[in-house]
C-alpha cells in the first residue's frame, strides 16, 4: 500500500467504502432512466435524425450542396474532422499517459473520457466519409489490389497515413476502454436482478471472476496498452497535422505543426471532458468521486496546453516574418487583418487569453468558470482549424482566383449531425455502462480517501493513510 503525504488533498470525499463505490456508480445503470436523461436523449435523437437526413441529402445531391468553390476545396468538413479528432485525444491521454505518470486522479474520470474519445473519433470519421462524396467507395483508401477497382494506395501520402492512424487509434482506444470495463461489467452482472440484464452483462463481462492471477495479468496488459497508446495518441494528431504540413500552401507547410496540433488536441479534449464531467457529477450525484481536485487538475492541463498553443501561434508569426518569404508573410498578415480577421481574433481570444484566467486558484476551482471557459476553449479550437484551413486557402498565389467561403444550410446541418451522433452515443453510454471505473477507484480509496470508515478496514479506524500501519504488510 502507498503512504500518502498529508499535504495531498483527498481524491475521494465523504468517507466512501468499497460497497459505497459500487452502489453509487451502479445505481443509475440499474435504475430506470431519469427524467433529465430521457429529455436529453430525446433531443439528441431528434437532432441525430435531422442530421442524418441532411447527410443523406449531401450524398444524394453531391458535395455541391456545401459552400465549397474551386479555391476553397476544404472548409467545414475538414475543420470539423480535425476538431473532433482533437477532442478525441483527452481520453487516451488520461488513461494512458497519466497511468504511466501514476496520476491517481485519473481513475475517476478515465472511463467517461475514454468513451468520449471513442465517440469523438466516430464523429471525426463521419466527416471523412462525408467529404469523400461517394462513401460507398471509401474502401479505396485501403491497400487493396488493382482488381478491386483502383491502384494500390499511395503510401507516400499523409492522407493514407491518416487512414492507418485514425483506424488504429480508434481500434486501440476501443479495446483499451473495453478491457477497462470488464471488471465493472462483472460487478453489474453479479448485482443484476433481472434475467435479461444478467445475461447481457454476463456476456459483456466475458466470465470475469477477479482471480488474483487474472488481475496480475490484467494489470500487466494495461501497462503495456498504456505504453502503446502513449506514442499512438501523439502520432495521431501528428499525422493529422501532416495532412497540412507536407503541402506547399503558405500557412500550412510549417514544421511546428505536429507538436502544436497535439497540444491543441489535448487542450480541446480536456475542455470537452470538463463539460461532460461537470454535468455527469451533478446529474449522477458523483461529487464525492469527481471532486474539485479533479476539476482543478484538468484545468492545469488546459492552462499548460493552452499556453503551448499560444506560443505556437506567435512562433508561426515570427517564422513567417523571419523566413522572409513574402507569400508566407502575406498568409499570416491576411489571417490577422484580412476579411477573416474576426475568425482569427476569435481564435486568439478564446485559446490564448481565456485559459490564462486559470492561473487564479478561485477561477480554476470554480465549477461555473470552468464550464464557461471550457465551452469558450472549444469554440476557439474550432476557429483555429477554420483559420488554418479556410484562411490559408481562400487567397492563394493567383489573386484572380481569390474567394470567400460561405457556409450553406448543409454545411451547418452536417456539423449539427455530429453533435446529435456524439450526444446520442454518450447518453447511451452514461445510462447503460458504469461512468466511473469502480475497480480503479476502490484501489485508490485507502491512499486517497478523505477518511477511512471502519467498514473498509480494520486497520485504519477512521484515520487517513498517513498512518504507517499500512506499510507493515508490504515487504
Amino acid at each position, binding site marked *: 500500500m502507498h503512504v500518502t503525504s498529508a499535504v495531498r488533498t483527498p481524491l475521494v470525499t465523504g468517507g466512501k467504502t468499497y460497497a459505497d463505490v459500487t452502489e453509487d456508480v451502479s445505481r443509475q445503470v440499474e435504475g430506470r432512466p431519469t427524467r433529465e436523461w430521457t429529455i436529453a436523449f430525446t433531443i439528441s435523437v431528434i437532432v441525430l435524425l435531422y442530421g442524418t437526413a441532411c447527410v443523406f441529402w449531401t450524398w444524394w445531391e453531391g458535395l455541391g450542396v456545401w459552400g465549397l468553390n474551386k479555391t476553397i476545396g476544404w472548409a467545414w468538413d475538414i475543420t470539423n474532422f480535425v476538431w473532433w479528432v482533437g477532442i478525441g485525444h483527452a481520453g487516451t491521454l488520461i488513461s494512458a499517459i497519466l497511468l504511466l505518470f501514476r496520476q491517481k486522479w485519473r481513475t475517476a474520470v478515465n472511463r467517461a473520457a475514454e468513451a468520449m474519445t471513442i465517440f469523438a473519433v466516430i464523429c471525426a470519421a463521419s466527416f471523412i466519409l462525408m467529404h469523400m462524396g461517394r462513401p460507398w467507395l471509401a474502401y479505396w483508401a485501403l491497400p487493396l489490389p488493382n482488381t478491386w477497382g483502383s491502384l494500390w494506395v*499511395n503510401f507516400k501520402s499523409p492522407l493514407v497515413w491518416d487512414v492507418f492512424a485514425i483506424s488504429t487509434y480508434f481500434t486501440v482506444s476501443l479495446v483499451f476502454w473495453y478491457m477497462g470495463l470488464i471488471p465493472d461489467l462483472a460487478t453489474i452482472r453479479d448485482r443484476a436482478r433481472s434475467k435479461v440484464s444478467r445475461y447481457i452483462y454476463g456476456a459483456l463481462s466475458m*466470465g*470475469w471472476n477477479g482471480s488474483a492471477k487474472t488481475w496480475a495479468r490484467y494489470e500487466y496488459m494495461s501497462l*503495456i496498452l498504456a505504453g502503446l497508446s502513449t506514442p499512438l495518441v501523439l*502520432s495521431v494528431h501528428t499525422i493529422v497535422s501532416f495532412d497540412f504540413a507536407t503541402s506547399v500552401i503558405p500557412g500550412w507547410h510549417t514544421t511546428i505543426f505536429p507538436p502544436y496540433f497535439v497540444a491543441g488536441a489535448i487542450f480541446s479534449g480536456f475542455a470537452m471532458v470538463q463539460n461532460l464531467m461537470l454535468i455527469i457529477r451533478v446529474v449522477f450525484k458523483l461529487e464525492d468521486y469527481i471532486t474539485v481536485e479533479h476539476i482543478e487538475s484538468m484545468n492545469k492541463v488546459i492552462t499548460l496546453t493552452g499556453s503551448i498553443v499560444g506560443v505556437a501561434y506567435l512562433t508561426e508569426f515570427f517564422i513567417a516574418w523571419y523566413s522572409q518569404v513574402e507569400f508566407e508573410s502575406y498568409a499570416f498578415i491576411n489571417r490577422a487583418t484580412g476579411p477573416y480577421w474576426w475568425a482569427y481574433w476569435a481564435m486568439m481570444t478564446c485559446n490564448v487569453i481565456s485559459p490564462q484566467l486559470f492561473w487564479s486558484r478561485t477561477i480554476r476551482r470554480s465549477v461555473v468558470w470552468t464550464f464557461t471557459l471550457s465551452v469558450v476553449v472549444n469554440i476557439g479550437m474550432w476557429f483555429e482549424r477554420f483559420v488554418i484551413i479556410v484562411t490559408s486557402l481562400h487567397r492563394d498565389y493567383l489573386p484572380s482566383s481569390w474567394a470567400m467561403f460561405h457556409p450553406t444550410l448543409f454545411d451547418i446541418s452536417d456539423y449539427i449531425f455530429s453533435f446529435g451522433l456524439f450526444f446520442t452515443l454518450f447518453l447511451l453510454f452514461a445510462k447503460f455502462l458504469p461512468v466511473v471505473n469502480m475497480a480503479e477507484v476502490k484501489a485508490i480509496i485507502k491512499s486517497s480517501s478523505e477518511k477511512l470508515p471502519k467498514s473498509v478496514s480494520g486497520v485504519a479506524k477512521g484515520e487517513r493513510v498517513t498512518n504507517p500501519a499500512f506499510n507493515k504488510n508490504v515487504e
Partner: protein
Amino acid sequence: MADVNGNGKFLVGIYDDDDVVLKAVKDVKQAGVRIHEVYTPFPIHGLDVALGHPRSRLGIAAFLFALSGTTTALLLTAYTEGFDWPMIVGGKDSYSFPVYIPVIFELTVLFCALGMVGTFLVSNGLGPTVKPLMFDLRTTDNKFAMAIDLSKNKLAEGDIEQLLRSSGAAEVNVKQF
C-alpha cells in the same frame, strides 16, 4: 484447475479488507495450507507474488505481435510500391523507406494491441459465452475471497476453517462445484 469443474469441495474465507487478505495469504501459506486462488474486486499489488503465481509472459506475446505488425507493414509497403507497381510521387524514390514510417508504426501498434488482448482473453479463459466461476458473488463488490481446495490439502476441514478465521476471515463458507 481441472478439479474445479469436477467434484471439487472448497472452503471459502471471506475477508473485508485488502491488507488483511494479503497478510492472511502469507499466514495461511506459512501454516502449510495450499491456497487455490484469491478473488478480489480490484487488483492488490503483491498478491500474485504472495500466492506464488509466476510472472506473466504477456510481454513476450506483445513483442512478437508487434514484430509481426512491423513485418507486415514493411512487406506491404515494399511489395506494393517497390515491386508490384513502382511509382514516383513527390520526387521520392518509388521505394522510399522514411515515408513508410507512419504506416509501419501504426500497424506495429495495432497488431501488438489486438494480439496481446486476444492472448490475454484466451490465456485467462475469458469470452462472451464463458460462465464465470464465482466462489462468492460479493467478490466483485466489496469482499475478498480466499478459496482453498480441500482435496489438495491434508489438514482437516475444521483446522483450515480455524486457520482462516484466525487470519482475519469474517466468514468461512463451503462451496461445492
